[in-house]
């Protein structure tokens, strides 16, 4: 397991590189983009369901972006391992 966890740790340390890009993903624009490009905001996008995320877009309010990105990464990884851990325990019974 060490052989897989060490390289993962190195990749994890590098994740702030993911913040270099200021560009949004194609089609993940703000509503202002539609206003400018089309002259209107499609109704469905304007009135979209808005789920309040714990850390929207991997940011945490009032926190440095890089620190928040690391914390988000840790939280996501912890959740994934936690779910698999519980699944393993449940299956072992």
């Amino acid at each position: 397991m060490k052989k897989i966890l060490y390289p993962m740790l190195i990749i994890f340390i590098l994740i702030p590189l993911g913040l270099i890009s200021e560009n949004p993903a194609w089609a993940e624009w703000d509503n202002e983009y539609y206003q400018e490009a089309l002259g209107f905001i499609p109704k469905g996008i304007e009135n979209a369901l808005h789920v309040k995320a714990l850390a929207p877009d991997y940011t945490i309010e009032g926190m440095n972006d890089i620190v928040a990105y690391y914390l988000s990464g840790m939280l996501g990884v912890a959740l994934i391992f936690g779910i698999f851990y519980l699944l393993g325990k449940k299956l072992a019974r």
Partner: protein
Amino acid sequence: MHIPDGYLSPITCIATYAAALPLWVIAFKKLKQDLNETTLPLIASLSALSFIIMMFNIPIPGGTSGHAVGASLIAILFGPWIASVCVSLVLFIQALVFGDGGVTTFGANALLMAFASSFSSYYIFQILKTKSFAPYVSGWVSVVCSSLVLTLFLGIQPLIATLDGQPLYFPFGFDVTFPAVVGSHILFFGVVEGIFTGIAYRYIVKNRIYKGVNA
């Protein structure tokens, strides 16, 4: 590549959930069968790696960005069903905790990033298995297939949902969506996924971390 809420018409959301649901059931059953003391830590680690890999947003010319998925690596090691359920779990956490990808569009996102990528790369790998470049090609194909499904979901929106000539949801048709989405995945994100899959697969096989269902 994560479709946000409000981009797909309600009918598309329902249809994609309906299509994904039986696939999740099958995939989860397969996962339960395959999980044991050897596979569980590795499957969990590769799922976590998929989550991490999606955090690397890569800027490309044209003012946009994107990312690899990591589905292909799991698919060629553990099969497409396992990969699909792992990446679905990652997408679920991204949607609920990080607002990355919508909740109403989770079914669609799972179909394109989990199922389309896992199955396409798995079968390509089966065909090319004996060649050393197989995992590289599989990774590339997986992301390109994802982008094709993404184009389909987005591109039909202005055709099926308009009011007084104005699109209600995603406003651009295939003429705009296809070159932007599929083109960028052929040229950039597919290449990144291919390199990632190839290097990681070689590393895992060389260090005998996992022999794989295919090895």
